[in-house]
């Protein structure tokens, strides 16, 4: 659905996006992570054929973003960083205006508008001017505008910013539902928990360059090493480390627990359990120490460029 090859954009002598290559398939959510100014928004603007790349190329739904820019914009729904609504309007005429620009018939415009306004809990406030909407409501309407023409590709820049938890969940559910409908979705966000919830793949961008790409699990393994396991026992673990040293390298230990890393937990963990049983030690729990995407992100950002 989205293929970019060495996509590059220069602004005033510096590279906002530098040789960015990415592949997003139908039914996949790719989250772009990166600090402010990393080039996420510029990437989205190039993918939506709003900006032309300085070099490299991108195709969206088979259309080249430079040569078939209009076709690309017809097939893409873009949620911009700011909602950018016309505040003197009410939602129905507002959506009708954008529906016209996307070439929808009056009936399609009316039906889609009603469907989406109901889905995002805005139907009841359809007669209010947009100026009277809260920040979250404005953001929801901007998302509705993005989905109005039912595009196969969605590019969402900070979709849940300024939303209350309930609204944010509504939006996340909508994104998951769209993914299940085989849409290709790119999400830019700073919300790492949300990224972990939504992403099939995560692309971490720094200073315009793609520095890491993979599933959340792959990224964790790549950036934080093999999973860290913790075994908790009944009684003290003093003097236990040398007796299991041929199976695991103990990295840390407490009063009643040991921590070790293993890339092959399916073989190492049963062996360790057998050894502990043989030593007459009773195991309370054995599990992986949780590692967050935040750890991965911070590790990537700390690395020298």
């Amino acid at each position, binding site marked *: 659905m989205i293929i970019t090859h060495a996509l*590059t954009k*220069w*602004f*005033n*002598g510096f*590279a906002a996006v530098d040789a960015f290559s990415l592949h997003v398939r139908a039914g996949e959510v790719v989250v772009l992570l990166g600090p402010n100014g990393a080039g996420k928004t510029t990437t989205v*603007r190039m993918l*939506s054929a*709003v*900006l*032309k790349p*300085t*070099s490299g190329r991108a195709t969206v739904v088979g259309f080249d973003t430079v040569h078939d820019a*209009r076709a690309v*914009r*017809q097939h*893409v729904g*873009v949620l*911009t*960083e*700011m*909602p*950018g*609504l*016309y*505040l*003197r*309007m009410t939602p129905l005429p507002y959506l009708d*205006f*954008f529906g*016209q*620009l*996307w*070439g929808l018939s009056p009936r399609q415009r009316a039906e889609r508008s009603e469907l989406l306004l109901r889905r995002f809990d805005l139907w009841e406030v359809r007669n209010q001017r947009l100026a009277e909407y809260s920040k979250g409501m404005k953001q929801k309407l*901007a998302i509705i*505008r993005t989905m109005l023409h039912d595009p196969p590709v969605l590019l969402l820049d900070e979709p849940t910013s300024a939303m209350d938890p309930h609204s944010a969940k509504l939006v996340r559910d909508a994104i998951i539902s769209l993914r299940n409908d085989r849409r290709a979705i790119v999400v830019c966000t700073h919300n790492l928990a949300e990224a972990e919830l939504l992403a099939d793949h995560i692309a971490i961008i720094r200073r315009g360059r793609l520095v890491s790409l993979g599933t959340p699990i792959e990224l964790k393994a790549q950036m934080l090493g093999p999973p860290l396991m913790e075994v908790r026992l009944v009684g003290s673990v003093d003097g236990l480390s040398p007796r299991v040293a041929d199976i695991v390298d103990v990295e840390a230990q407490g009063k009643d627990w040991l921590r070790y890393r293993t890339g092959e937990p399916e073989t190492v963990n049963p062996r360790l359990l057998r050894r502990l049983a043989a030593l007459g030690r009773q195991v309370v729990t054995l599990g992986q120490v949780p590692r967050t995407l935040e750890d991965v992100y911070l590790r990537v950002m700390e690395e020298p460029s």
Partner: protein
Amino acid sequence: MRHRLQEWRAHLAMALIVTRRDVRDSLRDWRILAPIIILTLFFPVLMSVTARLAINWLASYGAPIIGTRMIPFLLLIVGFFPISFSLVIALETFVGERERRSLEPLLATPLSDGQLYLGKTLAATVVPLMASYLGITIYVIGLYATIRYFPPGPLLIQIFLLTTVEALVMVSGAVVVSSQTTSVRAANLLASFIIVPMALLVQVQAAIMFWARYNVLWWIVAALLVADLILIRMGVRIFNREELLGREIDQINLRRIGRQFWRFLLQSPGAALQPPMKGSLRAGVVRWYRRDIPALLVRQRLSIGMVLVLMIASLALGWFYAPRYPLPSQILDFGNLSRESFESVGMLGFLPSFSPWSILFFNLRSLVLGSLLAVFSLGVMSFLPIMSTMGIVGFLARQIASAGHNPWIFLAAFILPHGWLELPAVILVTAFALRLGASVIAPPEGLTVSDSLLLALADFIKVFLLVAIPMLIAAAFLEVYLTPQVVLWVFGRG
């Protein structure tokens, strides 16, 4: 043909979607609506009453002509006041939307840059223009009702046309201003570059109307139409997604400007459109002469051609007008020519003294002034030095011919010995000055307006320093030491 028409209709239909929304939005804003209603409905009535009172009052002092001449002027004012709002609406609709970030969702739709530009331009023009036409109509009806006066048809057409082209100038100027700013505040500051010249123009029109030289108004309509075309061309070129989203803050970055200019100066032509290369830039005089200058001349062949055509046209114009202003015969008597005759040329005051450096300085000054004028007139005034010089040459050639001499021999003796170097230098400088001035109208793909100007300036400087100045130095020496010898040999008696 039919296909093209359908395509054009579809194009217009998309633009009109934007127009309709923007017009509705303007009509919802009481800050725009209230003054327009006042200026459309009440002001014309007030003006027709004022016209009647003024006529009666001036007639009582035996000066009815002043009152009569005032009526068309008030017609102009009644039309102008509502269209002044087109500037406000245009700034609001272009830069206001950009500031509120509501433009970006529009940019992500299938609308083309041209459709967006057309739609918004129409939206900014339609409401004030309709208000203006309505105001003029109410004023004319009021005049007829109060003093039984109906303006002549041609004058009414002139006023309607003037109002229309003035509104377009303001809107298209506002688009240009809007594309260079990111806030309504900055745009309002820059808008004085539009409103002040327009106010001055209205004063000029007022003077023309009191003077009753109504034919001159046609020339003003034509000039404004040209300004419209230039500004619209410029607007279409610079009102695009790249330019709109590439500018985040209105800040002059002198270091960046200097770095960019240096890059354009050192890089070969064409490299400017590529992304900057890492590492140092190297350039040499040999490369400039062998590769860059020929490439630049080839790129500027159109403007060089335009200068040549205008040069010939000026020559012909001078030739054509010469019989109307015949010179005294003693001036054309070459029998008494001597070396001293050339040296006394400097005493005329407006010409330089007859030395190579004075001539060179004079030529350089004219060319630099012409180039500066080019920058401020979007290239139009770059032709001034060469056109006036060639006009004088044509004029003199015809005078010589009238006095019984062969004009070709005159040109060969007086111009050719140094002109073979001087004229090409002047043509080149004029062509590159034209490009310098016009560079902001249509920046090349991938360059901003300021980068386009910097690139044109870098190219201008290369040609000016490396080609024009050496040629002008050589020409100045030839003019002082060779041309008089040739003239005396051809026309002199000893």
